C-alpha cells in the first residue's frame, strides 16, 4: 500500500464530534444574576461612601427620587413633552420615508433625482441642522419635531428603497401574469414585501428619535426629558439626572418591545 507506515496499532479509535465547541451553552440565570450583582455592587460602593453621591448616587436613592417625582407627577410632564415630539416626528418621517422610498425604488426618474440628494444630505449629523431649523421654524415645537423627523426619515427611506430593490421579481411577474397593473403591483406586492424592512427602519428610527429629542431639548426647551436632565446637571441634582437616564432606557426598551409585537401582528408570514 502506498504511504503505509509501520506504526503501532491502537485497539480502538472512537470518532469524536469535532463541532462540539460550536454549540453555545445556555445560561438562563446568569443574565439576571449578573445584572442584580452589578446593581448590588454599585449600591455597596455608594453606601460605603467610596464615591461621593454627587458623582454616583446609590441605586436605592435614585429609585426613591424617581418615586417622589412620580408621586408629584412632575415626571409625567417631561415624559409627555418628549413623547409628543417623538410621536409627531416619527409619524411624519415614517409616512414620508415609505412614500419617498417606494417612489425612488420603483420609478427611474425619481430615483435619478432623489438618490444624489439623499446621498448628500444623509451624512450630515442631524443635530447640526438644528440651528438652521430653529432659524427657519422658530424655537418652539416645530423645529424639534422637524429635527426628529429628519433623523428618522433617512434610515426609513434607505430601508424602504433597499426593500423595493430586493422585491422578488418573480412575484412581480406572477402578479402581472394574474392581471395586476402597476399601481396594484405597488399596493399588493411591493408594500407587503417591504413590511419587514419598514419595521427594521422603525426600530432604527426610534433610537435616533430618542437621541435627537434629548439633544433638541437640551438646546432650547422648557419641558422634556432632555431639559430635565440638563437642568438637573446644572443644579447638581445627580439623582434626578439618573432618573432621566433610566426613563430613556425604559422608553427604548418599551419601543423595541412594541415594534416587535406590531411586527408579529402585521407580518405573520415570517416566523
Amino acid at each position, binding site marked *: 500500500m502506498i504511504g503505509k507506515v509501520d506504526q503501532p496499532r491502537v485497539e480502538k479509535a472512537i470518532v469524536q464530534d469535532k463541532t462540539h465547541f460550536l454549540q453555545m451553552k445556555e445560561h438562563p440565570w446568569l443574565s439576571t444574576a449578573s445584572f442584580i450583582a452589578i446593581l448590588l455592587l454599585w449600591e455597596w460602593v455608594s453606601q460605603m461612601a467610596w464615591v461621593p453621591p454627587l458623582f454616583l448616587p446609590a441605586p436605592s436613592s435614585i429609585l426613591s427620587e424617581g418615586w417622589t417625582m412620580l408621586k408629584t407627577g412632575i415626571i409625567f410632564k417631561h415624559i409627555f413633552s418628549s413623547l409628543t415630539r417623538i410621536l409627531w416626528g416619527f409619524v411624519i418621517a415614517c409616512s414620508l420615508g415609505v412614500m419617498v422610498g417606494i417612489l425612488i425604488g420603483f420609478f427611474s426618474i425619481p430615483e435619478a433625482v432623489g438618490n444624489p440628494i439623499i446621498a448628500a444630505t444623509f451624512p450630515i449629523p442631524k443635530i447640526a441642522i438644528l440651528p438652521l431649523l430653529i432659524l427657519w421654524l422658530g424655537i418652539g415645537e416645530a423645529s424639534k419635531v422637524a429635527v426628529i423627523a429628519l433623523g428618522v426619515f433617512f434610515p426609513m427611506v434607505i430601508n424602504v428603497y433597499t426593500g423595493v430593490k430586493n422585491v422578488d421579481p418573480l412575484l412581480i*411577474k406572477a*402578479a402581472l401574469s394574474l392581471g395586476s397593473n402597476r399601481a396594484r403591483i405597488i399596493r399588493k406586492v411591493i408594500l407587503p414585501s417591504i413590511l419587514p424592512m419598514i419595521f427594521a427602519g422603525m426600530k432604527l428610527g426610534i433610537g435616533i428619535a430618542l437621541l435627537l429629542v434629548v439633544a433638541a431639548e437640551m438646546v432650547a426647551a422648557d419641558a422634556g426629558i432632555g431639559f430635565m436632565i440638563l437642568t438637573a446637571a446644572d443644579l447638581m441634582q445627580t439623582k434626578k439626572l439618573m432618573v432621566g437616564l433610566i426613563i430613556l432606557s425604559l422608553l427604548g426598551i418599551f419601543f423595541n418591545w412594541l415594534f416587535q409585537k406590531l411586527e408579529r401582528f402585521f407580518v405573520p408570514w415570517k416566523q
Partner: protein
Amino acid sequence: MKVLIDHISKVYIDRRGESTEALQDIHFAIEENEFVVVVGPSGCGKSTLLNIIAGLLSSTSGQVIFEGTQTDSRPHTAVVFQDFALFPWRTVLKNIVYGPEESGVKRKEQFEIAKRYITLVGLQGFENKYPHQLSGGMKQRVSIARALANNPLLLLMDEPFSALDAQTRTLMQYELSRIWEETHKSLLYITHNIQEAVFLGDRVVVLSRRPGRILDIIKIDLPRPRGEHLTLEKKYLEYADAIWGHIKKQAREAMEEAG
C-alpha cells in the same frame, strides 16, 4: 380559440453590446383544449419562449397571436412558475383568489371560485395556511389552483415540478394529468424531462440547444386518461426514445459547453 406562435426569435444583447441568440424562428400553434409540451436541453431558450408568450418579455421578431377570442377583459394567460412564486403574505385561499380579485370579481364569487379549485387540486383543509407552512408539492398545487382560478385562455407552466423531489414529481405528474383531464385548458408546458413530456402532452415540440430551433413536433397518440400503467407501455417508451434521439447529441454538447 387558437394560439399562434408566429415566427418568434429572440436575441439578448448584454451591456457590452454582445448579442446571444436564444430563439430562432419558433413557429407552431396551440389548438383549443390542447396540451402542448416544449422539451429541450438546458439553455435552449424554453423559458424565454414561455415568458414571451406570457407577455413578460418582448420578442426580437415575430409575435404571439390569440385567434378567435372574444374581446373581453379576461387575462389571456396565467403562469405556473418553477419556484411557485406564491405571495408569502397571503394564505392559500388568498393566493388563489388573486386573479379574480384583480379582474373585479365579487367577493362572494371569488370565494366560490377558490373553493372549486381548492377541491380540484386537493387542498381542502389548507385554506388558511401560509405558503411557508406547506411542502413543495402542496405549494405547486396552490400555484396551479391560482393560475386556473384566473380562468386563462392559455395556461403556461414553466418546469413546474423541477424544484420537487423525484417521488413528489412523479405523483404531481399524475395529479396534473388528472386535473387537466377535468378542465381541458389549453396548456403550454415547458420541461427538460422527456418522460414527463410524453406522459403529459398531446403534442411535443422538441427544441434544439441555443439558439433554440424546432427540431421536431411529435404527436403523442396515447389514450387518456393517462395513469401509472402508461409508463410501462411500448408505445410510450418508443416516443420517449424518439425524442431522446433528437436531444441526446444536443444535451451532450450543452453539458460539455457548460463544463
